[in-house]
């Protein structure tokens, strides 16, 4: 395979996932040796036109202009891969999806009439076909590297489909919920972060979004038994992945 042409795109987001790519310090030279960076504004002001072999897309769709722009990117990309919680689930900004937009804009901005946004923050997959999703807030750099390495080798990338609990157990971290009653979203969250929080005694915040078939109802019963009230349970699910169906539906049950 010739060096694949890679593009990195930004929508509504904090840039943290793109930074994860730049954060691959030791591997950066290997990456630029293996791929051709054709469009990555955070790394280089040199911009090349498509088509692109792989487009990594960060951020959610929050404006009419972005809803148009993503179609052009899709048309110019062989593989379109969303990176991070914004692109895969609408991000922290999807918190506004359950409220009246006008009220929020009035409350937040000094000149509300300058704000032109869509009612809801939506993931990329709500607009165009997505070939693969890398989860997380931010995305895991190991997964980014794995995806590129797998694409180069022509093999399926090894992306976790299991719960965060599996990652904790492989790492030897004792369950924070069972051992000291710390509320944790691990059992309903997809693995991939490297069990960052439980290994220092914190509960999982669900940064990697719901695992397939997440049984949030059963988990909430345990959170209730730990003494969390409905508001606190809803707040736990309303985080970086509040727009993901399993989390938004469960949060709504506790309003």
């Amino acid at each position, binding site marked *: 395979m010739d060096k694949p042409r890679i593009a990195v795109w930004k929508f509504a987001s904090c840039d943290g996932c793109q930074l994860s790519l730049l954060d691959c310090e030791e591997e950066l030279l290997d990456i630029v040796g293996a791929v051709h960076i054709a469009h990555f504004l955070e790394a280089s002001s040199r911009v090349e036109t498509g088509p692109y072999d792989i487009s990594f897309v960060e951020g959610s769709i929050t404006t009419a202009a972005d809803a148009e722009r993503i179609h052009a990117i899709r048309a110019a990309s062989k593989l379109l891969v969303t990176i991070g919680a914004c692109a895969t689930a609408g991000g922290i900004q999807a918190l506004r999806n359950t409220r009246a937009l006008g009220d929020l804009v009035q409350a937040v901005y000094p000149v509300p009439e300058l704000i032109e946004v869509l009612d809801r923050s939506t993931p990329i997959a709500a607009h165009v076909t997505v070939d693969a999703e890398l989860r997380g807030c931010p995305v895991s750099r190991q997964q980014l590297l794995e995806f590129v390495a*797998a694409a180069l080798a022509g093999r399926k990338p090894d992306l976790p489909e299991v719960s965060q609990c599996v990652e904790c157990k492989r790492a030897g971290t004792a369950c924070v919920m069972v051992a000291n009653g710390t509320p944790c979203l691990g059992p309903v969250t997809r693995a991939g972060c490297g069990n960052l929080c439980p290994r220092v005694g914190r509960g999982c915040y669900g940064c990697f979004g719901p695992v397939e078939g997440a049984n949030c109802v*059963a988990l909430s019963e345990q959170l209730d038994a730990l003494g969390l009230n409905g508001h606190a349970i809803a707040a736990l699910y309303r985080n970086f992945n509040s727009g993901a169906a399993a989390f938004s539906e469960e949060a709504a049950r506790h309003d």
Partner: protein
Amino acid sequence: MAESYFLTDPRRLLEDWLSAGWRVIAPLLRDDALVPDILHDPDALPRGYTDQQAPGRYRLVPGDSERWFDAVVGPQGWKRWLHPPERKLWSARRGETGFEVTPDTEDWPATIFFGVRPCDLAAIARQAEVFRRAGDPAYTTRLAATRIVAVNCGRSAETCFCASMQTGPGARSAHDLALTEIEGGLLVEIGSKDGTAMLEGRALPTATPAQVQQAALRIEAAATSQPRAMPAKIAKRLQEVPDDPHWEEIASRCLHCANCTAVCPTCFCTDVTDRTSLDGKTAERWQRWDSCFSLDFSFLNGGPVRSSTAARYRQWMTHKLSSWHEQFGSSGCTGCGRCITWCPAGIDLVAEAGALAKGE
């Protein structure tokens, strides 16, 4: 009857073994629990703890300050040492005309497992049988270079049910030494020739008949205190109830998070994954723990065979308590109770088995 000895302080033995160059692995204080890890200093051996265990709940709490072994099984057994969660199988390097494969070699130093509970002794024996039949020598190799110091249980946690699985609370499977906590110290029993060698150079006094009897009574009391018992005919019963509506009822509570399989000391399933370098010159094959609760586990061409949580729970429980007998000649359950304690949803294997055995 084999001769028994009396020891006042287990740290004296640990000092002997550490200074003789053994790697000692013992349950140590970590993550608000007791977890087997490498012991460097005999004084790091936890003392004065006990545990409170219930479905979905574990608390390590202060107990009798003089006692060493009142806190029984913790969040993980010895599986992660003998059957590591991640293990490199081989690596390969691309050459001019092809590629060269190098099997991974491992350095497993002479090791002592200190403080193995009887249920976990049984689990080690059962996993050894699984890997023997599978023709995977890695487990056997590690075990052969490991000496096992068992600790008989003078106290059971509420979730323990080893008595009904015939694995404890006194040691019944292979070990080199067995300790039982009694008044003022420990009764030491020798379980093998290696065990005799491990006591060389330390002249321990012979235990009195009263001390031997006290140890036996404590083990018996631990057995009779266990509130849970696995239904005796569960192996046969589970073969008769694949369509029982109770599986769906369990599934409504089950998080399919795979905690039960990860903490189970006999669950052995693995997956393999390949890693390749960005320059395409090197590759590695890794084995890692998998679980019948993950969707990928039963993925065949076209989709997973067990897509529902009910099907996955049924697979786990039926294999563990029933078809394991046909496959490996014993139950896959040793009654340690970890799947009950460490289930974040508090699903109780024994209670579910009881519900399924009803109407037998």
